């Protein structure tokens, strides 16, 4: 596809948010910003859909680097400016670590620019994976921005806030469209900057400290990425993603750039032992959390891994370790999520956990696993956005994010509770995509006993923490008690419902999603095994009755919405005493024990990451 309209679409998805972001800086007033955000959201959604259609029907969009040399130059300049900004920020925040990282990045970049970088390849390469990511970012990200318009009424600095939010979306889109690793690096670091600004937005001591932590971790990851890119150039003679050799062809030290980029992805996706920044980010306003956890930031890490998957495939020890890091993160954070009482923290752990699964998928490097990973990416983003936005609405309604305080919310905020129900259902219940991908992944690990062990335990823990939370919300008295109901603000209702609809549609169209986006990307490396057919989705060894389950779920939902004659109610059983009831939650482990587990996990996983980096070296020495 060469039509200029395509250029326009691609360009728009990156530039429009940035432009409106600048505009926001001047608007300052919330209602005006709201209108601008609304407009750009609608446009981005439409454009993302258009781009999606084009890519699905006409295949990837490729733009050669030599046609875009001016942009490359601009990006190089901006990149250096960005690095200097980071140095400045570190100096102001008195973070030596961040400063060192920023300086290192600067040095690596400068070295590369001086050494010269190959220019022959596609700078922009919009394939199915990119467009899938762009779609998630644009649609879910837009919804979150609209949601934020209402949420941020209680905060200061609207202009700056929305500017950064939109910039974030633009940078995300830019990153996933880039084929040139240096471009990707630039956008990658823009998201780092955005996350720093957003986390620190509230301006409190805690917020600022968390922001600095986040910057330290992700800048460290950036260093790893920069070095990785440099080594790419050194070993493979290219910085273009599509030109990286496939895994079977590389070994020894040549694996080092891949290992480093994987580490960078781990930091971005907050895998253990790099999870601290994401947990600290909880101090940010809820829309920020929603954005970081679903549409942007953490997705970028796993996106990079999915991109690198063809190269990682068959790399033996390296991909094995990536897989192990992924499942271990998955299990450990799933267990930790059981012990948390703050809803946002539970969600944060759950994010790390789910991203761990995607990492594991990449590490496993089979057709089924890749498919599962991509499905997970989409559905996780949607449901996480829904859940975070619900928590925000709950916080506004009740003043608390604590799970215990949400007891009986069903009676007080039925709509938001329904949204949580849908969100959690998307996470654990059929027919939603997360469930389907869990199924697929499980079938993929049947021949990997150890991975399977981590996985089955983690799935159990996942059910437990969601049951606990949802259970709290739905802990109600008799229907007679459910009288007073807070109205949920319209913006919240609309955005929550929109997200739910996106999730439901995506589930309903899972077959199309598979045929149009996932299988084509998977087929670059593997024979895609998951097909639509039979009762739903089928692989050579298994079958997922999607259609039947959708019918079942619809029937249940109809039953849930049906308000027939009220059944006879009775009070709860209290041994005849009829006393006041108080029910507590379970956290299984004491805080000390959780901290101990955390320390051990951090240590072990840090060792694993070190091993990951040294594996190529050892392999080289051995060979």
């Amino acid at each position, binding site marked *: 596809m060469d039509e200029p309209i395509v250029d326009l679409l691609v360009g728009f998805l990156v530039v429009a948010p940035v432009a409106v972001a600048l505009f926001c800086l001047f608007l300052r007033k919330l209602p005006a910003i709201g209108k601008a955000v609304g407009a750009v959201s609608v446009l981005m959604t439409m454009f993302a859909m258009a781009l999606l259609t084009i890519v699905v029907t006409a295949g990837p969009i490729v733009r050669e680097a030599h046609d875009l040399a001016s942009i490359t130059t601009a990006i190089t300049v901006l990149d250096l400016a960005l690095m200097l900004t980071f140095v400045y920020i570190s100096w102001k925040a008195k973070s030596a670590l961040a400063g060192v990282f920023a300086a290192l990045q600067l040095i690596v970049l400068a070295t590369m620019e001086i050494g010269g970088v190959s220019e022959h390849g596609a700078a922009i390469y919009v394939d199915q994976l990119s467009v899938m990511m762009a779609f998630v970012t644009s649609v879910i990200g837009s919804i979150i921005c609209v949601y934020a318009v209402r949420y941020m009424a209680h905060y200061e600095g609207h202009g700056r806030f929305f500017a950064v939010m939109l910039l974030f979306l633009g940078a995300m889109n830019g990153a996933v469209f880039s084929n040139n690793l240096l471009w990707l690096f630039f956008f990658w670091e823009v998201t780092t900057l955005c996350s720093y600004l957003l986390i620190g937005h509230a301006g409190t001591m805690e917020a600022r400290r968390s922001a600095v932590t986040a910057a330290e971790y992700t800048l460290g990851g950036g260093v790893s990425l920069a070095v990785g890119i440099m080594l790419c150039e050194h070993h493979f003679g290219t910085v273009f993603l599509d030109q990286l050799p496939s895994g079977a062809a590389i070994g020894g030290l040549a694996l080092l750039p891949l290992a480093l980029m994987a580490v960078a992805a781990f930091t971005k996706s907050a895998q253990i032992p790099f999870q601290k920044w994401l947990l600290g980010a909880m101090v940010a306003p809820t829309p920020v959390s929603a954005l970081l956890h679903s549409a942007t930031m953490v997705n970028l890490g796993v996106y990079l891994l999915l991109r690198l998957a063809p190269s990682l495939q068959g790399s033996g020890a390296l991909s094995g370790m990536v897989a192990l890091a992924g499942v271990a993160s998955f299990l450990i954070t799933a267990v930790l999520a059981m012990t948390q009482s703050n809803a946002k923290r539970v969600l944060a752990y759950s994010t790390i956990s789910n991203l761990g699964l995607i990492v594991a998928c990449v590490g496993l490097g089979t057709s089924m696993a890749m498919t599962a990973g991509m499905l997970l990416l989409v559905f996780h983003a949607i449901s996480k956005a829904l859940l975070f936005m619900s928590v925000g609405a709950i916080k506004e309604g009740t003043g608390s994010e604590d799970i215990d305080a949400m*007891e*009986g919310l*069903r009676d007080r905020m039925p709509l938001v509770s329904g949204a949580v129900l849908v969100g959690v259902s998307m996470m*654990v*219940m*059929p027919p939603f995509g997360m*469930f389907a991908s*869990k*199924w697929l992944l*499980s*079938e993929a690990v*049947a*021949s990997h*006993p150890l991975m*399977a*062990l981590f996985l*089955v*335990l983690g*799935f*159990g*823990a996942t*059910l*437990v923490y*969601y*049951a*606990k939370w*949802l*259970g*709290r919300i*739905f*802990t*109600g*008295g*008799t229907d007679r008690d*459910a009288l007073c109901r807070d109205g949920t603000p319209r913006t919240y209702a609309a955005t929550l419902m929109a997200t739910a609809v996106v999730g439901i549609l995506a589930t309903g169209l899972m077959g199309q999603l598979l045929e149009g986006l996932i299988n084509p990307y998977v087929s670059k490396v593997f024979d895609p095994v998951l097909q639509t057919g039979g*009762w739903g989705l089928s692989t050579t*060894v*298994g*079958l997922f*009755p999607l259609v*039947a*389950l959708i019918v*079942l779920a619809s029937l*249940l939902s109809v*039953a*849930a919405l049906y308000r027939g004659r*009220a*059944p*006879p*109610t*009775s*009070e*709860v*059983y*209290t041994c005849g005493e009829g006393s006041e*009831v*108080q*029910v*507590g939650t*379970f956290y299984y482990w004491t805080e000390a024990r959780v901290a101990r587990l955390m320390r051990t996990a951090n240590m072990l996983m840090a060792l694993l990451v070190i091993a990951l980096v040294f594996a190529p070296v050892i392999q080289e020495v051995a060979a």
Partner: protein
Amino acid sequence: MSSMFEQAALLALWAAVPLLVGVLLGLDRVLTARLQGRRGPSVLQSLRDLTKLLHKKGSYVNRSQVLFAYGALALQAAAALVLIMGSDVLTAFLLSGVGCFLMVMAALSVRSPYSHLGAQRELVQMMATEPVVMMVVLSLAYASGSFLGAEMEGMLVLALPLAAAAMVPVLLIRLEKSPYDIATAHSEIVSGPYVEFSGRGLGITKLAHWFELGVMFGILLLFFRLSDPALDLVVKGLVVLAVVLTTAVIDNTTARLTRWRMLRFSLTLCLGAVMLNLIVLYLVDSGVIL
């Protein structure tokens, strides 16, 4: 035509799952009574109980409770159907797992201390059994090369003896028997997750539980398949009877232990047994052993 006939027969079998499980539970009750020196009820007693419950209107505390219970039933029934149709065993198991999740939700959706304690114990119970059964399913698939029940052929128990054995404690737990009758532990938490259900609602939860048991027994029976249909039936019948007898005897010779012991036992010994079995098989396949 014959395939249509077969499908109809399978559907009939599915519809008969509650009957079969009911009779099995009745048999278990008679056996338990005899082991205790009592005469005991009729073999059909469990079915009679269910019929009575389904005909009794009952009262509820709130709507969510009822809806979750119906959801649990729907999922368990769907799981049983998937299994019976010879389709994906893993799908069946996952569906049944979500069915248990919904049952927990049903118990949690009432502000009742006993119900909540029961639900929390049910969660621990799920943590104890789900991983084991899932590993069992994975090992079945590994040994047979397919996740489709219809394609799991031969006496897989010969390749997976430990995995099959691990199903016994799981069934012990799921049949609510000591030493691991935890969630509904009759004395201290009254009837745990079921405490706030009555009449038809209770019947629904029971039915869901029966379907779940059907799925569990179904997974166990996947270990035993012979090509001769008559012999196949006999072997399967004998296996089920042996399991019922074993669980009844174990139930009657032990006191009920606590939930952490259960969790430890099942996550170390049972899961370990399946893992060991799977790893041995894996090593044999990759030629490391033999």
